[in-house]
């Protein structure tokens, strides 16, 4: 399964809905995609089925930088919290 990124924007807020797997090999693409966005970003994780540690660290960093993580499943949330605590 690959990663699909759908963007919805109202000009001020951009919601990136990620679908599929978010693993280290997809992070470069996601970062590049986010770099081109000028609006405030919210990442919708409701359709993410699998993440790896690099992805969790990336999501934690995004959240620390002000990116909102939406519909984050509990296990990803728990993992983010643990990574942040470690």
């Amino acid at each position: 399964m690959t990663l699909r990124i759908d963007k919805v924007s109202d000009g001020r807020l951009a919601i990136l809905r990620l679908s599929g797997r978010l693993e280290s090999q997809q992070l470069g693409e996601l970062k590049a995609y986010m770099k081109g966005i000028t609006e405030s970003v919210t990442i919708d994780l409701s359709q993410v089925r699998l993440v790896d540690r690099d992805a969790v660290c990336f999501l934690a960093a995004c959240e620390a930088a002000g990116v909102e993580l939406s519909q984050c499943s509990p296990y990803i949330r728990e993992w983010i919290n643990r990574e942040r605590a470690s």
Partner: protein
Amino acid sequence: MSAGEQRAFNKAEDGQQAEKEFRRLSDVLPQYMCVYGADGTPLFANEGLLDYFGFTLDDFRASDFQSRAFHPDDLARVQSTRNDAMYRGEGWEIEARIRRKDGQYRWFLIRGKPLRDEEGKIVRWFSSGVDIEDRKQAHRELEQLVDAVPQHVVVLTGDGHRLYGNQAACEYHGLTHEQFLVEPITNCFHPEDIETYSRKRNDGIATANPWEAEARLRRKDAKYRWFLIRGKALRNEQGSVVRWYLTRTDIEDRKVAELELRRLIDVVPQYIRVDDQEGKIIYANDRLLDYFGMTLEEVQATDFRARVCHPEDLDRVSSARKQAFSRGVGWEVEARLRRKDGQYRWFLNRYNPLRDEQGNIVRWYATGTDIEDRKQAERELQQLVDAVPQHIVMHSAQGRRLYANKVSLDFLGCTLQDFLDDKKSPPFHADDVASFFEARQRGISSGMPFEMEARLRRNDGKYRWFLFRYSPHRNGQGKITGWYSTGTDIEDRKQAERELQQLVDAVPHFMTMLSDDGRRLYVNKVALDFFGWKPQDFFDDNATTRAFHQEDLPNFLEKRRRGISSGAPFELEARILRNDGQYRWFLFLYNPFRNEQGQIVRWYATGTDIEDRKRAERELQQLVDTIPHQVVVLNAEGRLLYGNRVVLDFLGWTLEEFLRGDAIRAFHPDDRVDFQLACRAFSQGLPFETEARLHRKDGQYRWFLFLYNPSRNEQGQIVRWYGTGTDIEDRKQAESALRRSEARLRLLLEFTNKLVTNLELRELLRVAAQSLRKVIACDLIGVFLPHSDGQTLRSFVIDFPESKGFLQEEAGDATQRRPISLGNHPLAEMVFRTGKAWIGNEYDVLQLGFKNLPPLAEGLKTGCVLPILGRDRVLGVLGLGRREPKPFDSYEVDLLRQVADQIAIAIVNALAVEDRRQAENALRRSEAYLEEAQQLSHTGSFAHDVAQNEIVYWSAQSYRNFGFDPANGPILWEEARARIHPDDRGKVDECQQKAMREKTRTAVDFRVLLPDGSVRHIHSQCRPVLNAANEVVELVGTNIDVTEQYTARMALEKALEENKRLKDELYRENLALKEEIDQSSMFEEIVGTSKALRRVLVQVAKVAPADSTVLITGETGTGKELIARAIHKRSERSSRAFVSVNCAAIPATLIGSELFGHEKGAFTGAMQRRLGRFELADGGTLFLDEVGDLPPETQVALLRVLQERQFERIGGTQRITVDVRIIAATNRDLKAAVTAGTFRSDLFYRLNVFPIAVPPLRERKDDIPLLVQYLTERYASKAGKKIKNIHKKTLELFQAYDWPGNIRELQNVVERAVILCDGETFSVEESWLQPEIPLPGLGPNSLARLGAERERELIEAALTETKGRIAGPMGAAAKLGIPRSTLETKIRKLGIKKHRFNSV
């Protein structure tokens, strides 16, 4: 009666008669009159008086009359005055109030006078009363007014007794009015001032003259202030002083200021003195006293002036002083005053009178300023003036001599004094005396500087001319105080002038001198002789009228007036009358002469006879008119003066129109600016020429060459410009033709050059179009070349900068073979077909039947279409078009034909080049392919001249095969041979020799030893090449690197051996496995023998080969996928792939991608193309697990695939056909989902072809022991444990348990138990299998029985408890005791937003 008695009687009679007469008379008088007896007894009162009192005569005569008549306050004073006067026998006068009959008192002036008889005895007293009530009233008001005055006003009697003091005076002294009248003077005045004041006051009263004095008056606070007291007498009709009116003005401030001033005066660097009106010194400042070393008393001494004034100056000073005093005017005198040290210094002494209000001099103020330094400077200046070689004389304002310098005195031979005393008058020439003094007097009267010339006789008796200049000297007020005159010897200049005049008279020109405003001053002899005039005739008012030709006079006068007012030199031409009665043309030149200040003082005019020139001009004009060229004459500034007949005839103008000043309108508008720019040369004075078009009278413009040359006078000044105009129209046209010809040649040359430079054809034609556009004005240039069909054309090059887009270039090169439908050029195609040119306009096109042509749509009006002719065919078409309706002329068509020929050459070249390029490309491609093929096949080729033992050809791959780098250049055969393995060299040689010997193809395998020590295996073939004599000249062949094949063959051989070994082993293992499986189940991993299971397996066996779509239903964990796999294995597709998709595990956004695949870039994250599950399962089986969870949009796509067996990848366009068997599975109730609208009914029916319901474990409990045994062994083996027995109780527990998680739960329990199991007996704890207490009323089916609201409450409560988690042991589904998918279905159905519980 005696005579005496009679006289007395008569007298008495007369007296009585007179008295009667008096009484009668007094009754009619307006005055009040009364008569008293000599002793004062009242006798008579006139009627006016009685009426005033309201008395009778008896009342008047009564004794209490006075007490009744007079005001009580006045009575005593009246009686006292009257009695006193009567006693003294004198008249009296008194003012008193008398009571009127109405009780009112009024003031009366009462006068009494005695009437005496002849002996002087008083016989009667006459008294009269005048009503002065009004005067008194006015007096009272005056007193009030006086009291209001801030000044002190005091009234004295004629002899000086105080009568009145106003309120200000009384209050100043702090006295009442009564006290003031009697206050002693010593109490009022400062003791130091009483004497002076009293003296002045008494003197004034005694002389009855006004007087004034300054004195300090004592104020009520005992302080003194200075007052100016002025006394003025009031006289009665007789002139006697009856009152003194004194005003006292406070001058304290002035006195203080004077004191301050005096202190200031003492420090002024002048001496200041104040004298009284008689000249007595009353004040001298400290500086004066200090200068003379005297006290004030010494200065006031009478011999003061004689002591201090220089003896030589004393008389002058005294005289001047005396005159000034007598005239009462200020004066000043310079005199030497002796300083206390005995030195004399020059002082300027000024005296000025101070006058009072009446103009009387009350003071003389004298100031003395030390002018010693100035005097010294004057002495030095005088010495300097004496040294000047000019006569310098100083005069008074009126012209009286004051000074003459030494030069003057020496010239005159007299002393200064003689000169000043007028004893020695300047010896002017007798002819000059009168005019000199007259001019001098006039000049002095004017007050302005002036000068004049006169001859003076020197002491040697000779006269010399002098220029006398007089300049006024003014004081600070601008008033002339003197005149300075200088006399400069101009004898030499005069002599020069005389000589000059003789010279002027000798000049053969007129010479006149005019004043600055043009008045005639001088004329030379030549002029007078010309006119035959005497000098005075020249100054006659009518001289000009007489002299000039009447036609020229107005113009002459006006120009002369303008010239003189302009102040700039000017010249005139006019005819003047000679003494013989003939008029001759003269040129008059006027030049101003300016003084040093730049003001014009003279005009000098010369007149030159130009009659001959004028005649020559007239003749020239006649001549010029006959010249066939245009000739114009202009003045120095370039203004037209004349145009010959040719000009005027050409333009159709008169000479007046030509000279009107706007001749530029005759030029072509495009040439006017250039012509005017060229005419700037007029101001530079250089000859010039220019070309321009002139408008002929018939409306045509013709080109002219204009040449302008200046004509100069003897001084080199330009006086005329002569211009000629030559018709160069023919030359211009020839030039134009030449230019066009040159342009044409240039164009063709450029085109040829471009042709030679091997430009690409399209680029060449574009460049050619740009060059062509320079020569031919057009909008469109197009080149059309044929398509491969040879009939239709395409627009190969379109040069159309302002195209609207209807005409465009069509892509492709000159050799384009593929017809392009874009072009539609029937006109060009007509020319192409016929090979004939077409030249015409838009109407011609329409007549040809061509409509809607792009050129017409572009708005082109005219066109020229020419065939591009090759050697034997038409190669294309050249077309030009214009939006301007100007047709293409023959010149342009000829040029275009030549251009078309050039283009034909270019096209032929391009086609040839293209053919050659294609051939070369083919060759290069062939070589590249060969090289590529050789490289890919590791095959090198060679040619070997065996006789010479030289390598003729050695391909790149041959180099590589032998380990050489082709880039290093050719190698020798020996070098190549050296690389052959030594053991193989013999074989190679033998192979070559055999080929040459037998003239046949040979082959050999050999090894090449590479520099790195590795070995390469080469297979080489060669064949001989024979010449005509059948002799071998070389060997050609190939060498193939077969190292890989060799190595692969070696490896293959080894692998085949290993494969054979493994195959045997695998066969054995396979047999063992099959036996093992068959023992446990008829289907792989489907364990059980229960009836329910068997029923399912029967269905499987039946449906498996049918290739039908199967829908497997059953609770979670019942092994639906195992059933699907079993169907696949039993089907025809078992050899192909079984692809499983868990539809619930894939995000809705990716399910489509997962099933159908996607193209690269179909969405963000689609980095490369990916095959979907359908494609992977092509030929096999696709198992769609949890198919009930498919999102609606995917359901549609899936349905389409099931119907058509075709689909497209996400982001792709290509339809893909697959052969896939679909087996779907779900734990959901799809019928209910269809009813609920969450699952498409058509998809359901498409899937539900062969439904198989897998029973839950609780319905096949018979299989539990077998399953437990199977699972126990599997997990024990996996865990490395050995379990031999299963505890009976455990099996009972297992069978008693409902297993909501079915076999998956059973697996988990067994695995856990195996892990925890320490012995060989398998057992589980009872607590593991205790059923969870379900929520009240819950269960897979119980929820459905609840109402929707209750159901919502229960689900939301469970979600709240599990924080939104649905699946898993701690999830809401487990809490509710229903499958996760069921719960999710209900959540969606009830519209519960499960995510809101995540944060709870």
